[in-house]
């Protein structure tokens, strides 16, 4: 079994998908590496890839005039990075920078999106799974906005 096939088959995110779907997704994957300090993508880039981080940590950052880069979240091994490939306008919402040497599997989102258009069952299945990630990020962002550790927390 190819390394990527095994990775996809074993990852909790893809658990329960039929073998054909797993094979299709794995077939759209390729292994990539990013040196420390390099960017996986920048805010506003076309979103045609998502990543499964296998090693190292990635910071999601947003730059603001006068404040410079602010880290809004960090992701690590086992985490999925990128959901914007699945929903219009298919553009990256933040910068992603390697905090360490990062090894990941990059998936061709444009290719999978095309398959999803052709097969709504697969599209709905993936949308449900990525919606959970979006929901988790939304909850985390709400908690950050609440500033729960302030004196009113």
């Amino acid at each position: 079994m190819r390394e990527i096939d095994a990775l996809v088959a074993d990852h909790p995110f893809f658990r329960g998908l039929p073998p054909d779907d797993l094979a299709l997704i794995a077939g759209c994957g390729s292994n990539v590496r990013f040196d420390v300090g390099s960017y996986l993508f920048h805010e506003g880039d076309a979103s045609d890839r998502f990543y499964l981080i296998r090693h190292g940590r990635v910071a999601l950052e947003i730059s603001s005039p006068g404040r410079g880069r602010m880290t809004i979240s960090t992701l690590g091994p086992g985490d999925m990075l990128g959901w914007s490939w699945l929903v219009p306008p298919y553009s990256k919402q933040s910068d992603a920078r390697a905090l360490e040497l990062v090894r990941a599997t990059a998936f061709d989102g444009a290719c999978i999106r095309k398959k999803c258009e052709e097969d709504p069952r697969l599209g709905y299945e993936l949308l449900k799974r990525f919606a959970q990630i979006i929901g988790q990020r939304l909850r985390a962002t709400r908690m950050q906005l609440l500033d729960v550790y302030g004196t009113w927390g």
Partner: protein
Amino acid sequence: MAPQAFCVRRTRRESHDVVTLEIEPAAGPGEFVFAPGQFNMLYLFGHGEAAISISGDPTTPQVLVHTIRAVGSVTEALCRLRKGQVLGVRGPFGSGWPVAEAVGGDLVIVAGGVGLPPLRPVLYHVLAQRDRYRRVALLYGARTPADLLYQREVARWRGRFDVQVEATVDAASPDSWRGHVGVVTTLIARAEFDPAETTVMVCGPEVMMRFAIADLQGRGVPPGRIYLSMERNMKCAIGFCGHCQLGPTFVCRDGPVFRYDRAAPLLRVREL
């Protein structure tokens, strides 16, 4: 119950608004026995009294340790105390963390902000008898890197091979912090434990605890294995005055540590 006089032995500034006081009986050496999770009423002459969790080591009861965040007139005055000054102590009060019930299983400690001090005695207790517990994880979140408490001690715990320690901050600039960024609940997915055989102890702001409990239940931890420490306006500390009443319970007397399946109905009532 009259306060006993204690003398400040040592102070340590933990962050811009948090100070740790080590105090000892003014009358001379003595022991102050307490259970992890209990609190004292600290009384400062001319200012008033505040309920503060005990954050020291239960196995060294000769010194009483409190970590205090300056949020009001009494706590601000407590944070200004210097070596040799005197304060009054009533206690210990309240229920403790279920360290005995957790024996034999995994233990996950989720602390947010100044929720770590009431849980530190648990860590001392567990690390002193490490072989009685299976996997132990500390998940700790703070607002910024400068707000992280007990930084040297947390680094020491992280250096051990028998404790998983994960710390995160809500916000940081890349130049000031190389660790995790994100709310403490994001660490729950990283912790290694068997949900059915785990005891979880959660302490922090109430919103943080609600979010954490939702994620813990999402991982399969039964409500009856989750414990949380509640904070209310405690005045008498012995269940008389009603200031800390939460429905039919008094947080000072019946808590502050509650099992989640018992506290959940109360948490759902707004402004209770």
